[in-house]
């Protein structure tokens, strides 16, 4: 029975972590680069990463 309380606590922590990750991603404007990031798998492995 106690394990359920633990599970609820763990799920709460996971929710908090996922929300934290989401906030971090939005603050870094990663959602604005989805089209560019979607191309990453198409690039050659030996291609150097480009940064502006």
């Amino acid at each position: 029975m106690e394990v359920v309380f633990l599970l609820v606590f763990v799920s709460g922590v996971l929710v908090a972590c996922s929300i934290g990750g989401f906030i971090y991603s939005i603050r870094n404007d990663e959602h604005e680069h989805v089209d560019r990031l979607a191309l990453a798998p198409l690039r050659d492995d030996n291609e150097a990463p480009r940064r502006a």
Partner: protein
Amino acid sequence: MKRSCLHCQNPLPPGEDTFCCAGCRAARALIEEAHLEKYYELRGGPGVVVPEAPVRGEIWLEACQEQLQKSKDEVIRLELDVQGLHCAACVWVVEQLFERREGACGVVVNPGAGKIAMTVRPRSFDLGRFARDLARLGYRLGPSSKAERSEASRGLLLRIGICAALTVNVMIFTFSVYSGLVEGPLHGLMTGAAWALTTLAVLVGGGPFVRSALASVQQRALHLDLPIALGITLAYAGSSYAHFSGKDGASYLDTVATFTTLMLVGRFLQERVLERNRRQLLADDGVENLYTHRVRDGVVQVVRVGELQEGDRLLLRPGDLVPVDAEAPEGGVQVSREWITGESTPVAVPGGAVLEAGCFLAGDCAVEVKARAAYAASRLAGLLRTPGNVREPGARRTPFWSRLTRWYVALTLLAAVGSGVGGWLVGRAPGRVLEIVVAVLVVACPCAFGIAVPVAYELAQGALRRVGVFVRSPSLLDRVGMVRRVVFDKTGTLTLGELELEHPEELCSLPPWAKKALGNLALRSRHPKSRAVVKALEPQGLLLEDASVREETGRGMEGIFEGKVCRLGAPGWAGEAKGADLVFSVDGQVKLAMMTRERLRHDAPGRIRELERAGYEVHLLSGDGVERVAALARRLGLAPERARAGASPEEKRAYVATGDALMVGDGVNDAAAMGAALCSATPAGELPFLPARTDAYVQGELVTGVRRLLIVGDRLQRTVRGAVTFGLAYNVLAVSAACMGWMSPLVAAVIMPLSSVAVVGYVIGRLRGVERIDEESAGEAVALMPSPGAA
């Protein structure tokens, strides 16, 4: 089988078997030259629609390049705005073109913000060439002047993410209650966790609605956010009361969290649609990024036109805009006044006379002129200050959707109050009365208005974007349903601002040497009539030869070939010929009498017929002369009474201010009419501030774009009406059940999201592929015409 353009997949005009226009031909050629065919694969469909009309040179690029050349840094970072980015394929092709340029170091293309950040070696990177390559593919660079993404939009996205994560967990916790867990410590844990997460969701997600509802109450206006905010607040209060008083049966916790999240999604879509359109265009920069060449102390400087003062010396090249009233140089110049008056024929301005601001230099060589006034005092400044998006009272009408919302809000509140009063009168306990009021507000959640309508607008605008129509004004798609008259300007709108020979086949009658002489005279002139000759001769091969040729301003070209004096120019000067406006003569003898006419946009005749078949009145409204306008109306099959010539900007404004006109124009002389019309559209090209001030901006085939705008607008309105009808029917049933006290939390929790999904599914089904329906059946247009008064 109907064939389509190899680049944009639009239908091909008659006589063409590969591309719909020169723009698409150039785009495809560049893609093949650079081996970028993967672009089509990544887009999963047609390429970006390319402007058919040529875009004039942009002096801001010179200023930028000058800064690059002066830079002492080894590597510098350059951020520019870019117009026309849609998807990953756009990003890929821009990156590829950049990487192939010498001096290119790194690039980040951001389609969300419509920006491109480049790291380049300033002395070796050719920005102008890169900009021209992009322009060939339909992307346009501009100085970085777009504002950063608004904090409000980012905040909304954050709220959605947080509320969605919380809602999913609330659902999981509440599911245990629905499954039969009604007592014990585990029950307490589950409901307690659900309540805590719902509280967070309401705090995070309810804020925007509560603030907006309070503002609407302060302004004494019924806004859709009022029932949303009331629903969230009362449902949360009722559920909390039930939770702490141990009555699970009244707990709407998961419904409250779901409702809040869905409403946030709807709000985000509403805001994103417009922001995305704005991001995909260059900024509405007025004259901020309009540059010219000023000569000071013998040095040519690139300056903003806003800095010009009376007495400044300006260097104007062929095709340049005259930014302020100026004094024509000795010997006179040829100018095109099409942008300010609609007159398509270049006119000669004698030396010392006033060159009107807004003209374009049409001559063959650069000239130096003296500014007669500062920019701020010029007529052009006044015209460009006209805010095109501020509609005049006659053009302002409230869309049905907005009117309906007010009624809906009033009726919902009335039903909630009525159910509460009714429950109290029949002697129900206060707790039960609250339950019923909450149930009414929750089940009456305006899903159709709050989610389905924003989704419909997003789909419609996305569909239009894909075919090169960019909607800038929030209410345009509500207004196009009321359009009955489509009014086109002539020069630059229905015509491309270029001339063509009426009978190019007559050139074949010339002997080879005469053809060569004619070609050499025409090649040395930038006059539109000469260009028409060049265009007609091009298929037969043209070689520029060393010859003595001179231009006589306002008359034509004269040269000596094989010892004979050849002239190409106006009748009377080059030789006498009736029924001709261009004459080629040799030693005074007329060899060829030609007639030119304006080059039409290739899609205009067919699409205009379709518009008329669909029930729209098509009008031609121009500042140009009677004969030219009448000739164009005949070519388009328009009735003479629907073609008006010689219209001044004020007359144009009065002509369209009837509350049912869509004005399509491209000149500053159309700006007043665009503000007075019910809605307005403009083609791509020219300078960025006109597209930025109209309701819609069409890249690619203009008349096709206008027709698609009308079709999509009409389909959207029908879809919204269907969704709203569904929503109202659902609400009447659900609210009735809630008023009677028959609505349990479980039923409400199930049917509320189900109804949302159903109505959103209906909207998606109705609007999928709507941008291409005109290609399947032109005849369908008849059925698409809105019935009078439907809006």
